[in-house]
């Protein structure tokens, strides 16, 4: 037995029809929509909070910059131990039982934070700068243990540093060449040179800001700015926007999970939320085939309002409905 072909003529046989001008409808919709967006754009403009640069970070919060840069050398920042796709660390790897897609995908944008954010830029800056060159040689020639001792002492000293105008005064201590390295890095960053050095890739053109953004994200400065603007994940940030503008409100359900347990306390919250949303989206996609979900329109009879004219005009002549949709 062959499947019967669907036929509009048969489906609509006996259905009363009325004139409907589709072309007029889309034309009017285009005109009205243009007027609405022009009015909104003229009256309200659009979000435009200036981006943070390494330069502005080093100038506005030099202590945090020095702390973060030292952390990159120590290997204590988020990006230095992140894991795939940036490196082979495990600090930000999320798994669920045997499910480990982050590990399966592997390292595709290699980032060695200590080298990329600190040592390589200083290597470029050391040309014609013998003091910095000697400090770099001394640091890189030291044992890992000696480096950590210097870095620990420096990070403690930075905790007591003071900002005097354009200068940052870090209390003196036996932190070897680290003071010279960090002082120079701060100077380069304040000049704007570090923004260029981190995006340089050995070729002329570049559009990849992975290294700069990871470095910015390791500091507290950007996080504090985001917290002030209610953009943190714990503040429903993904659906918020800078300024007094609506954000991606359509992501409300996605960000809801981050506010409630177990998601709000889970180390693998991102993976859990993505899987949860994937499951819910699949349910919505398959709604036509899922009893219960497809019957909700029957239980919440909004349809009576949608077709109230039809029900009124057909009156008692309407046929009985099937028991299910």
């Amino acid at each position, binding site marked *: 037995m062959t499947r019967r072909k669907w036929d*509009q003529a048969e489906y609509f046989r006996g259905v009363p029809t009325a004139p*409907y001008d589709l072309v007029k409808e889309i034309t009017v*919709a285009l005109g009205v929509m243009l007027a609405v967006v022009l009015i909104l754009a003229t009256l309200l403009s659009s979000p435009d909070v200036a*981006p943070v640069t390494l330069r502005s970070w080093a100038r506005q919060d030099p202590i945090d910059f020095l702390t973060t840069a030292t952390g990159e050398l120590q290997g204590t920042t988020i990006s230095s131990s992140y894991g795939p796709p940036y490196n082979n660390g495990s600090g930000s790897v999320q798994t669920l039982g045997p499910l480990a897609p982050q590990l399966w995908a592997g390292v595709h944008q290699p980032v060695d934070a200590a080298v990329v954010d600190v040592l390589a830029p200083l290597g470029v800056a050391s040309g014609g700068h013998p003091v910095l060159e000697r400090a770099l040689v001394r640091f890189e020639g030291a044992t890992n243990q000696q480096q950590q001792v210097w870095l620990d002492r420096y990070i403690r000293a930075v905790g007591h540093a003071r900002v005097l105008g354009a200068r940052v005064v870090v209390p003196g201590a036996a932190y070897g060449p680290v003071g010279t390295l960090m002082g120079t890095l701060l100077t380069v960053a304040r000049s704007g040179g570090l923004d260029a050095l981190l995006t340089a890739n050995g070729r002329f053109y570049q559009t990849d800001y992975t290294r700069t*953004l990871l470095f910015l994200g390791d500091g507290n400065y950007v996080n504090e700015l985001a917290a002030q603007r209610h953009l943190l994940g714990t503040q429903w940030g993904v659906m918020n926007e800078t300024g*007094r503008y609506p954000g*991606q409100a359509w992501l409300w359900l996605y960000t809801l999970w981050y506010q409630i347990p177990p998601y709000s306390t889970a180390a693998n919250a*991102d*993976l859990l939320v993505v899987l949860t949303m994937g499951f819910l989206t699949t349910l919505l996609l398959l709604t036509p085939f899922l009893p219960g979900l497809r019957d909700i329109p029957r239980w919440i009879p909004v349809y009576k309002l949608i077709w109230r004219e039809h029900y009124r005009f057909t009156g008692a002549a309407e046929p009985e409905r099937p028991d299910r949709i």
Partner: protein
Amino acid sequence: MNQPPPYLHWAFIQISLPNLVLILVMLGLFAVGLVLPLPGRRHRRRAYQEPVADLDLDPPPSPRDQAPEPPAPGERSWTSAVSRLLVRELPLKHLLADREPAYVGSWMYVFGVVTIAALVWVVASGVVLVIFGPQWWQVSPQGHFVNSIHFWSVQMFFIFMVLHLWGQYFAAGWREGRAGTWMIGLVVFLVSVVTAFTGYLVQQNFDSQWIALNAKDSVNATGVGAFFNVLNFGQMYGLHVLLFPIVVTLLIVVHVVQVRRRGVVKPIERRAGS
């Protein structure tokens, strides 16, 4: 407008005033769409009172809607096969019908068209932004204005797409062979979310930086981050201005063709006596 807005707190719920206003506007539009009569009520009432005119028979098919003569043996070709298929499955009288079933009498049927109208302005403003380059809207008042048109068009696009989705859900628009229409429509919504997301990433302002830094953890956790680097402006820009708009547009074309091919689903019939 760039100062932080007021926020409302209730238990774990925290919402900005602009987002609350937007959601209330959506709910209000949906409610108004349900109760406000759609123009043309007089025609629809008459259609119910007068003898029935079958949708497929009135007006009579035009010559170009006629299926071509079956090819003679030896003249069969892929081109003629596709031609016959298109004429059979997508006749102009269905694609651009000037009559609809008389039960098409609610603003719920208009939300889909308004969504497409918003998309037209999203694409038009986006094309202007692309023509002048990715820096333009940051350094020129004219560019910023076009960027504002793009921003608000996107908001309108999502507002009316969600209203259309709500309307189709409560009308159970997937009935009687229309499950594919529902599913493609939902895929349009999902791809649109990703398209908008890449748009937010390429604004080149603080919002872009923060969204990229936050989103990378979710994207990386799924393994997708290995190939879809939200911190790479060039990759996100290319996807946003080329690939995703093409996918959204093509899917919407498929969705509209599905709607026109099957026609508008009949009303849910009430229980006898209700």
